Every structure is written in C-alpha cells, then in structure tokens.
C-alpha cells in the first residue's frame, strides 16, 4: 500500500539527498569536511535509532562496530577489492551484534547499556593485545580515495539506511518493535519472538556502523586502536539521535546538524570542554527536551495545528 503521501515523502527525501550530493561541487574544503562528518553521524544516529528508538535499549556499542569497520579496511585495502571491504565489515558487525544481542537482550535494559558501554574498550584491548603479539602497531591507510568520494559514499549509505528504516517502519518487524517498546509481556503473549526481533534490528544497526567505519578509514590515514575505538563516538551518536528524537525517521538528522556544528565550535575554541558539552546535552535531553526536537515538534503541532481537525 503506497499512498500519495508516501510518494510525496519519498520524492522529497530523494530531492533532499540529491541536493546534498551536489555539495562537493560548491566547496571541497572546510564545509565539505563538516558535511562529511554530518553525513557520517546521520547514518550512525539514524541506524542507532532504528533499534533503540522503538525498543528503548540504549546501545553504546557504536564505537566498537565502527572501530572494527576501520580495521577491516586497514587490514584489507591492499589485498582485497575496495567494494568488498564494506561488505566484510557489515558481516562482522552483524555477527558481533548478534552475539552481544543473544547474551544481553533477554535481560533488562541496564545490563545491555553496561555491556555495550564496555564493548568498545574490550574490543580495543583485544585488538591491541593481538597487535602486540604479532608485533604490529598502527597502520597507514593510504589510498587515492578523496573526501569527496567518502562523502558521496556516505550519502548513498544514508539513502539506503533511510529506505531500510522506512520499509521496516511499514513492516511487521517494525510493528513488532513498537509493541515490544510499549509492553514486552504483551508482545510475547501476542506471538512475537521478542528476542529475535531485537537481535535482528541490533544486527542491522551494528552492520551499518561497521560499514561507516570501513568507508571512513581512508579519511583517517593512520589507524590505531586507541583512536579507532574511541568511546566518545558512541556517546555522540546517542546524544544526536536523542536530541533529534527517535520517534520519526528524520529525527536523528535534526539532532545531527546542530550538534555537529556546536561540537565543531566547542572543540575549536575550548577543546577541554567537549565533555562538559556532552554532559549538559544529556541533561538537557532528560530535563528539558524529552522526545527531542521531534517530541517538541509534535507537541507544538498538537497545540497549534490540530485545531482544524
């Protein structure tokens, strides 16, 4: 069932993405660099919200998946075809997510947060240990891939993630997740395999984060565990997604744009205060903006726009 409204939304989304894809012709310096960061966070936050929005499980595992993705490219870019690397990263991300999900998603949300919080650090420790044993250090990813290429790849990936998110939202899986988020007991007794539904979604978001890592590796040039698995990334993604709001597909994007600009500004002028900014943003979301910008938008619309109905 595709309604005229759906077609309008699809066309609008396609036009917006097309417009975004033109940006490198306008600027290939600072603005492109910021836009690439935004595109990266858009993909990460949107795929994060696909899972965490309906289920209310807060995943802090993004950095773990992302870091693994960068390592896939770092290890494979000389020997394997470039197009294969994101696919391998996706596979590894999905498998790791499935394993983590099987262990933790049967249990309450607190266990999941804690487990994912340490996951990036755990993977980092293991990778560092393996590197030490094999006598490797960090690695150089020297390719002919430019920032412009990375940007376009990310825009393409964003289009894919939005499409997948849209399809899931209309599918039985998406409906099942909404029910789980409302009342897991009811979900189970209505015939929903709740553990499976959560694991599948978590696998999707894990795979996407790993692909983003794989695509971005050439941007960093030099990759080592302490930067590739930096836990701050997970928190940035959570903040942006929640600031925008997870109730709509476009919600995270509404958080990514202002927060990236703010983050860029703060880390330029007061690099020691970025953590303070993160903290304040978290508190702001809890106390002032529950539901994020999407929640605010819905509240305002209900107050002022619903009069006609």
């Amino acid at each position: 069932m595709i309604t005229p409204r759906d077609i309008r939304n699809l066309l609008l989304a396609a036009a917006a993405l097309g417009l975004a894809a033109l940006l490198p012709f306008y600027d290939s310096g600072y603005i492109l660099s910021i836009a690439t960061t935004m595109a990266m966070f858009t993909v990460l936050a949107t795929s994060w919200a696909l899972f965490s929005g309906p289920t209310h499980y807060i995943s802090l595992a993004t950095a773990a998946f992302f870091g693994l993705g960068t390592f896939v490219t770092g290890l494979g870019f000389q020997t394997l075809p470039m197009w294969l690397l994101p696919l391998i990263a996706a596979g590894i991300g999905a498998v790791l997510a499935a394993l983590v999900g099987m262990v933790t998603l049967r249990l309450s949300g607190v266990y999941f947060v804690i487990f994912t919080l340490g996951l990036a650090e755990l993977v980092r420790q293991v990778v560092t240990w393996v590197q030490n044993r094999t006598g490797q250090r960090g690695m150089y990813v020297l390719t002919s891939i430019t920032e412009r290429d990375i940007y376009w790849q990310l825009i393409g990936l964003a289009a894919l993630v939005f499409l997948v998110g849209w399809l899931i939202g209309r599918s039985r899986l998406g409906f099942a997740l909404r029910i789980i988020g409302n009342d897991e007991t009811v979900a189970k007794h209505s015939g929903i395999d709740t553990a499976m539904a959560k694991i599948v979604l978590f696998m999707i978001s894990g795979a996407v984060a790993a692909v983003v890592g794989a695509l971005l590796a050439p941007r960093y040039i030099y990759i080592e565990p302490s930067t590739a698995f930096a836990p701050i990334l997970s928190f940035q993604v959570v903040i942006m997604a929640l600031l925008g709001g997870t109730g709509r597909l476009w919600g995270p994007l509404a958080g990514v744009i202002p927060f990236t600009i703010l983050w860029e500004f703060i880390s330029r002028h007061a690099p020691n205060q970025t953590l303070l900014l993160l903290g304040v943003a978290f508190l702001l979301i809890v106390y002032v903006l529950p539901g994020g910008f999407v929640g605010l938008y819905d509240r305002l619309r209900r107050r002022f726009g619903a009069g006609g109905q």
Partner: protein
Amino acid sequence: MARVVLEVRDVTKRFGGLVAVRDMVFDVHQNEVLGIIGPNGSGKSTMINMISGTFAPSAGSIRLNGQEIAGKPAHRIARQGVARTFQLVRLLPELSVVENVVAGAAFGHRQRWGAEAESFARQLLERVGMGRQVNMPVSSLTYINTKRVELARALACEPEVLLLDEWLAGLNPTELETGIDLIKSLRDDGRTIILVEHVMDAIRSLCDRCVVMSSGAKIAEGTPADVLADAEVIRAYLGADEDA
C-alpha cells in the same frame, strides 16, 4: 462429549520451597467455558500463567490439540493458539485502539497483516461493543473499554483457547452485566474459554464446568451448581475467609 482441546496432566509448579500448583489434572473441551475458581492464593493465576507460557511448569504436561506446550516460550504458545488477557489490563499506550487489536492479529495463531488485519480488527472491536472509538488513543478510554480492547486483541489471533484472567474484576454492576453478556455471546460463537474468576454470578451463568483449586491442588470439578454445593469447596472458601 466434544473434542479435547487442552489437556493438563500432573502439572506442578514450585517457587523455591513453595509449591504453588500441585498435580493439577483437567481437560478443556471444544466450545466449552471452563472456570478455574478458588480462594485467593490458591494457584489459579499460576495455573493459567503456565498454560500461556509466562513460566514453565516444574513438572507435568500441557497439551494443546495433542501437542506439548509446557515449557515452551510464550510467543510459541501464542502462535499455537493460546491467547490471554491480563489480571491488570495491559494495553499498548502509544498505539491507537485499532493498532492495539492489530497487534493481536499480526503475530498470533492466524496471522493477518495490512488492510486485512485492520478491517478484521475493526470487526472485532465492533463485536466487543466499541465500534466508534477505534482511532482514539487508549489513554482516553473508560475502564470497561480498556478491557474490551484487550479482549478484542486476544480474539484477534483467533485462538484455540482463550484465557480470561479475572476479566470481569473491577466492573460496576451495570458494566458487569454487559461483560457477562459479552462473554456469553463469545461462547455462543463456539469459542473455547478458560475463565479465572471471583465473581460468583459470572461463574454460575457462564461456566459449563468448573475446576476448584485450594492451596495449589484441585479439590473439586463439575458443573457450577455441583461444585459450589460441595462441602470441601465451601470449607475452602470459608476457611480462607477466616484466615484473611
């Protein structure tokens, strides 16, 4: 006698040292309303929680149409054809009334999706007596209407056995009459229902047979009139009153 739909054999449930249900045996036949009654804490809720798969029995067997369901996860049991309502109503607060019912239709015993599920849900809402409020948020519903929606959700998966856990509790006298009539009409549709209930009027007028539990064990089984006249049943109820 009609075909046996649900077969409970020697089911026991222990919580630590406490035996909540002991060696329960009973059958549920097609098109029958079976009441499970007994004083508070006699193990009725534990019994139907085991049938619906909320938790597994410590011992014994529960068969649905000949297939073992004891100990299976709740979603499997739901798909095999057991639907339930909850002692304290559980609706999905962020979903509309009709979506709440579609939730039952989409994943249960007979699965429906899309337009078909929606029209089926509307049909069921009509059936339970709330045709008009289908697009409202559930937070605006009256108490009996929340119960109606929950009932429609359970019906939406077209269960082989419908479990109603004190569905009539908390209704005022007028609502109670409506509620009893509604369940009666479900029986007339040919549904198979297990009813856990405290309301005596409802038990008398609805149940074909009753199983009476006390301290986790079955103490009587038969027609409502027979079991309610049984000396041991009276003792169990009055004794429980004295304790309380």
